[in-house]
């Protein structure tokens, strides 16, 4: 079967299987699965507010998904999206609180650029260590995550601290905040989603149309052949980590500029790690990642509504877990598909 068709079929079938299994679970706990799923859908798409909420949750997930997915395409496993996101947002927040005198046209791109550069630089440390010493990026990025988390915690409890209560940094300048696309009650949906989609398109073009993308993919698939073909493996490993980190930094920027308007502890909230699952479900394809992030984003938004009718919101964790399991162990689904085809 065509590999492109497979790349779409595997995640779709995985979602269907996950829904089937969770249907059984819902029945077992004595609830009506139709009610549960309609609550889930109502919660994520039932109202303007629900839709805005879903989009807000989806935005950073697209970007961290792209970050991890891009790394995978280049053969590096960037577990550090969390740390890169934190560092990007933290440093950008520090600068952007002083951008009051700049017009939005400058302040917005500048803040984004700072977050991306910081994310890129922070990830490039791991890339550089891998290229020069062979230190595995999984280990180094996990350690860099710790450093970033503790550093951020120190900053918001110390030098950057404003008022009492939750540790947080000062608010960024109004001119550095992303424009609001839709405002429903207290919920403001910013232009972050547009930035995320543009990032996905740029990643798609970079990977599939550019010479640089060709080199990055070659290194990811087979570093020996890449080197033989005159492609510098160490340069591309550092570059791939940096681009991956820039995307994670951008995720931090959209959260900072579009949602919280300041740095606070829960800004990243594990979204960097979610990027790993989303990249997996999206099969490292930029467009697939958009859909995967949207799936996870809407499941999470809708879960509260499900809770109201008595189905635990953790049900979505079950769905999510099964999807990831099936996509990761894609041979299970592939075997089912091939068996079916042979049977025909």
């Amino acid at each position: 079967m065509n590999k492109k068709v497979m790349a779409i079929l595997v995640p779709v079938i995985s979602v269907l299987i996950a829904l089937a299994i969770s249907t059984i679970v819902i029945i077992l706990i004595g609830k009506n699965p139709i009610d549960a799923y309609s609550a889930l859908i109502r919660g994520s798409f039932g109202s303007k507010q629900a839709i805005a909420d879903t989009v807000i949750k989806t935005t950073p997930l697209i970007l961290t998904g792209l970050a991890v997915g891009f790394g995978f395409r280049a053969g590096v496993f960037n577990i550090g999206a969390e740390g890169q996101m934190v560092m990007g947002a933290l440093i950008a927040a520090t600068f952007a609180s002083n951008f009051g005198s700049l017009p939005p046209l400058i302040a917005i791109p500048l803040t984004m650029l700072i977050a991306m550069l910081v994310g890129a630089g922070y990830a490039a440390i791991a890339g550089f260590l891998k290229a020069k010493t062979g230190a595995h990026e999984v280990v180094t990025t996990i350690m860099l995550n710790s450093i970033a988390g503790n550093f951020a915690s120190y900053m918001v409890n110390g030098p950057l601290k404003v008022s009492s209560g939750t540790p947080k940094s000062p608010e960024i300048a109004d001119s550095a905040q992303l424009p609001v696309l839709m405002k429903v009650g207290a919920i403001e949906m910013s232009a972050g989603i547009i930035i995320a989609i543009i990032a996905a398109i740029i990643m798609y073009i970079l990977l599939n149309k550019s010479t640089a993308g060709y080199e990055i993919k070659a290194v990811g698939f087979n570093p020996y052949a890449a080197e033989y073909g005159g492609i510098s493996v160490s340069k591309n490993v550092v570059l791939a980590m940096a681009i991956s980190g820039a995307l994670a930094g951008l995720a931090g920027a959209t959260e900072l500029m579009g949602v919280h308007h300041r740095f606070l502890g829960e800004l990243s909230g594990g979204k960097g790690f979610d990027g790993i699952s989303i990249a997996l479900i999206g099969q490292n394809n930029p467009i697939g990642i958009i859909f995967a992030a949207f799936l996870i984003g809407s499941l999470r938004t809708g879960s509260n509504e499900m809770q109201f009718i008595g189905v635990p919101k953790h049900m979505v964790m079950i769905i999510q877990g099964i999807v990831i399991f099936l996509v990761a162990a894609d041979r299970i689904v592939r075997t089912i598909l091939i068996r079916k085809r042979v049977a025909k």
Partner: protein
Amino acid sequence: MYAVEMVNIVKRFPGVLANDHVTLRVKKGSIHAIVGENGAGKSTLMNQLYGLYHPDEGEIFIDGKKVVIKGPRDAIKEGIGMVHQHFMLVDTLTVAENVVLGSEPKKGLNFDLKRARKEVMELSEKYGLTVDVDAKVEDISVGMQQRVEIIKTLYRGANIIILDEPTAVLTPQEVEELFAIMRKLKSDGKTILFISHKLHEVMEISDRVTVMRLGKVTGELETSQTNPKEIARYMVGRDVVLTVTKEFHEPKDTVFEVKNLVVKDNRGLVAVNDVSFEVKRGEIVGIAGVAGNGQTELVEAITGLRKIESGHMYFEGKDVTGFTPRQLREQGMAHIPEDRLKHGLIKEFEAYYNVILGGHYKTLFTNGPFLNHNKIFEYTKQLMEEFDVRPRRIEHLGGNFSGGNQQKLVVGREINTNPKFLVVAQPTRGLDVGAIEFIHKQILKMRERDVGILLISMELEEIFSLSDRILVMYEGEIMGEVRPEETTVEEVGMMMTGHRLEEARRG
């Protein structure tokens, strides 16, 4: 009386019919060769006999009795032994320990090393399988490791021994020794299944030949009543030219030269020791040697893939020591690597991305910072046409082509760069005779176009038929230089085992 009968064996893998109603009958006490190109299904068939795979259809009879072989354990019980292409030995154990591993003689609860040594020595003497029972496997030669593997099968009581491409790793002398052992085993009533694609060896040692092609048996021949040409025809499905004829061609000035090259291997040991030679335009310089004597490191150093410890390289007189692969390519060097799956191809890339590797950044294929896919597709179509790559689908993935077609892609890509100097390593490893013929023709064509060629090969035949000059490498050093018309296989074989030219000449 048949020792082995495999009747109507069918084995499918996803998308491939590896064995299509194959029937194999092997007489007791004979040496039976199974030949065919890579992917013809020889190994699949043998793996089913040894229980590593299970046939989807068909039956197996051993000594006339129907058997179901669920795994190697069952195969061993039926008296079947297999010596794999890649030896399954524990490097840090001694020869005797390796032989008895898995069925150790015991004294009470303890391992009885004395008895193990004695039994191994008995077997070794009986069949002329010279081994040093107390040596660690990591310290003995490849030829001896192979003998250890054979003793292992005998120790487990094998009457039917499968040898999977046993000569691929041996020197000519070691091949002769192996054949002597095989004859001895045969005279003792053992049945031997010999997998090979070297036709002269098949002619020399076997009693009968089964030829396979694309999963089917295409010929069943009595060795004494056939010839290599006929076997080749069954293997490839058409007539093939087995011997290359090369015209005289006057070499021109020097295009590439190395002086006092020293290169280390991955373990940090000196692998290439003070090697110097030159290659002229329009000349093929062959490097002969047993695998693992520094050829791989030499090629990697020359092509910029491995650091040079000391010494110099010159390209058209210019010092290119320490140049990167891309810089060397830009000077006009091309490289057909020994391991096409490691260096030569990216399995996950489509054919069109594979054929631009190395030149992918050139204006021929780009449009500013972007790839020009139209030009790339057009170029790929032409290349696949010119080098007869099949299937002729530009979007076919590199890893999905057969070995021969993968090699054609690599050869086509490198030749199309119009090089001045071409490094060719093991160009026909694992290829069928048809593809070998094609690749050899291409190499000779390059020579006529005044390209300087460095040919590294384990196949002495290939070295002899193509080279204008032969250098023999042993443990990283050049043992001597000879011309193919002035030397013999024996002389080169002597040099391959560590004798300098003068010693080899003295005999």
